[in-house]
Structures are given as C-alpha cells and as structure tokens.
C-alpha cells in the first residue's frame, strides 16, 4: 500500500464528485487485477468479465463509502470477489465450463518468466491443479498474497477482516494447498488435453 501514486487519490476524489471520465481511468488501471480476481472465484472467463463489470459499476456508486487514503485496489477487489461469489451462487445450477486457472495458454507475446520455466511444466501443473482444487476462499487468499503481491494490510481490506487474522487465514490456506498437493501425488498423470493449443510446453 506504500508508494501509491497520489494520482490515484485524485482520480478517486474526482470520480467521487461524479466525474465519470476519472472513474474510467481507474477502471482501465484496475480492470486486469479485477478480472483476474473474478476469474479466481468464478473459474469462468465470461462470468468473470460480467462480475468485474458489475463490480466497477457498483463501486462507482459506493465511492461515498470509500475511506480516503485506503488502498483503492483492495477495496475494489472486495467488491469484485463479492460480485463473483454472487454470480457463482446464481450460476450454481448451470454447468461449469471447466475453466482452469492454468487453462489459458499464455499469449504469444508473454514468454513465461525464467522462474516458471525453471519450475518445470510438471511442477507448474501440479501447483495449478492444487490451486484449482482449493476452496475458492483459500484460492483467493493465496492469490492475493502471491499472485497479486498484496501486503497483509491490503489483504485485510480486501478480505474485510482484521489485519491480525490475515496471517492465520493465509497459513490455513497454504495448509489446504499442501493437502491438495499430497492428494495430487496419488493421482495418475492426466491424459494430454486434446484441445488445440491446450497442451502446455
């Protein structure tokens, strides 16, 4: 949360006074993290897009309740994940489309980072499978910390919980992740995905 540009605060202030243009700038700035957070909850790209869009609209009308100086991204993500969860609830009778966290192949212009390459594709798949198998709330906590690199203070805002409980919730989520990794050891290796372009590596 440290080092947030002052500009964000200005944009929020302008948006709060009804400046839709300023808000549009905020949307562009945070749409990627919002969409990705929604993906983590819905595991469906279309649902995630709808959830993120609804969340941005809702957040605009809730700006009066935003505490000046608070991390906007965290506040926004709280709304996004709520929207995504509501969508999950609405969609509970619909069939899952089977979107996996790692299901989308990186686009051509985004080469895997050296660290990931060093992990090995098998390790990467195991890790992703375990993340996918996690309870959505655990998955979001881990993603906040390690994918979005949020501080514990930011996570407390995003999770709407006291700062003191972030560490224990993260620790519990990591324990659950480990359980799924162990479970993965017992599973046979999956057959190659027949979809064009779905096979990594």
């Amino acid at each position, binding site marked *: 949360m440290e080092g947030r540009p002052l500009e964000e605060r200005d944009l929020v202030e302008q948006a709060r006074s009804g400046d839709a243009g300023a808000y549009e700038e905020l949307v562009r700035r945070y749409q990627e993290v919002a969409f990705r957070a929604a993906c983590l909850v819905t595991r469906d790209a279309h649902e995630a897009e709808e959830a993120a869009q609804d969340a941005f609209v809702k957040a605009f009308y809730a700006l009066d309740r935003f505490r000046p100086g608070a991390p906007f991204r965290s506040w926004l993500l709280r709304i996004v994940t*709520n929207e995504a969860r509501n969508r999950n609830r609405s969609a509970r009778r619909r069939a899952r489309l089977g979107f996996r*966290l790692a299901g989308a192949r990186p686009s051509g212009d985004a080469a895997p980072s050296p660290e*990931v390459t060093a992990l090995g594709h098998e390790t990467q798949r195991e890790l992703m499978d375990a*993340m996918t198998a996690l309870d959505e709330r655990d998955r979001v906590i881990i993603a906040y910390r390690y994918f979005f690199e949020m501080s514990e203070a930011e996570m407390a805002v995003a999770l709407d919980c006291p700062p003191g409980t972030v560490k224990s919730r993260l620790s519990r989520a*990591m324990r659950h992740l*480990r359980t799924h990794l162990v479970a993965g050891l017992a599973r046979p290796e999956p057959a190659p995905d027949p979809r064009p372009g779905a096979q990594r590596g």
Partner: protein
Amino acid sequence: MADRELVNMDDAELGELLRALGRQRSYPPTPDLAPAVHARIRARSGATRRQRAWPLAMVAAALVALLCVGALAFPGARSTVAGWLNLPGVTFFAETVGDRPVLGGALRLGEPVTLAEARERVLYPLLVPDLPWLGDPDEVYLDAEPAGGTVSFIYHAGGEIPPAETTGVGLLLSQFQGQVNPGMYGKGLPDGVELEYLEINGHVAFWISGEPHTFSYFRPDGQPVQETSRLAGNTLLWQHGGLTLRLESGLDRDQAVEIAESMR
C-alpha cells in the same frame, strides 16, 4: 508422477514458487471493461437525475394529503385516490401505534414454496429480479391474499445486502395483483420517515426511507390490518404492469431502483 519436492517445501519456498507462477500470464486475456462501465454509469446517472426528489414543501403537502387519504373510511374514495396516484392497490395510511413501532417476530408471509410452485399458483406472470449481485431468492412464500396471491421473496443478508434491523433478513420483495383486487395497502409514516417520488418503468413509485415504519393493509373487505412484524428498512413501492411491488431492505435507493428495474 507429481513433484515430491513440492510437497516437502515449507511455506516460504512454496510462496516463492507461487509468486513466480503468478507473474506468468496464465489467465484469459483481460477484456476492456471501461467502455461498458462508462456507458452504464452514464445511463444510470441520467436515470437518477430523472428520479427527482420532491421539494420539502411538496413532500409535506403530499404527506398531509396522504394522511387525509388514510383517514377516509370509504373504499370507493380510497380507490379513487389510489388511481389518481397511478399506483393501483396502494395508498398511504397513517395510524398511531406509538412513537416507535414494534418490529420483529415471524414475518408471516404465507406458505413456503419454491419459485416454480409460486409461478404455477399465482394468477399473474411472476416477476423476478435479474441481477447478478442479487442472485436467486433464498426463500419464497405464497399468501392467498389479496386475490391472485401475494408472492414474497426473502434474500438473506450477506455480501452486498445488509441485514435488516431486527430480523436478520436482508431483503423482502413482495408482489401482488393490485388492479384485480383494489384492496388497500398502506404505510404509516411516523416522524423521521422521508418520502420521495420516483419514476420506475414510466410509472410513479415511492421511496420511503429513514426510521423504521409500520404497514397498514386493507383487506379486500375494507378492513385495515396492522402489520408490525415485517421487515421495515427502506421501502420502495412501485408498479409493474398490473402488479404492485414492495421492496424492503437496508439497501440504498439506487440499489433498490436497480432491483426494481431488473424485474423480468
């Protein structure tokens, strides 16, 4: 076979791997949400501006008029005024029940049913909100009165829905056929209650906010029924076709209007 080293890593090591993984683009491409969000905000801002609140003097005059309406004991006269307000089956009724109405207890909404059962049993096409952030009703109730049936949806508190003051219910949404049965439906308006005039779907609508308030309901035989046990947060009353709808919740006006406008 899975990577056994992964299982044996401590949280810090595992965290580093997750961090590395997070840096890779393993999500679908992010869509550009800004144009759609911008358009929706602009559209809704226009609608909000149309929802002009009555000036204070007009509200006071309206309240006086409505209190007078409430005092009328003639069903014919009440129907006339209800028609004049263009909200069939609804009028306002002021009744002294003490300074602070008593709230709480069972909601007495009728028989619990499924959404499908409610659709089959009422004599009108049932309207349901179509809003992602609201989702499906958690509970559905059917009451035989007024004629044609009243269907009530309960949404539990949680997420964006704050709990009501006494019941823990998040949102109560009821609908009944106002035009078929001109049974009166009223609301007491004690001190601290504000009334706003809105327009929803081209019809007059009322937004009643502030202190908790009670309901007075006229049965088809003209007898008033005091209801003090229902949810009593902010209330939106509006018309949709031949139906009159009532939404009670702790939501703000814009959220309530969003729900009303989403009814399909």
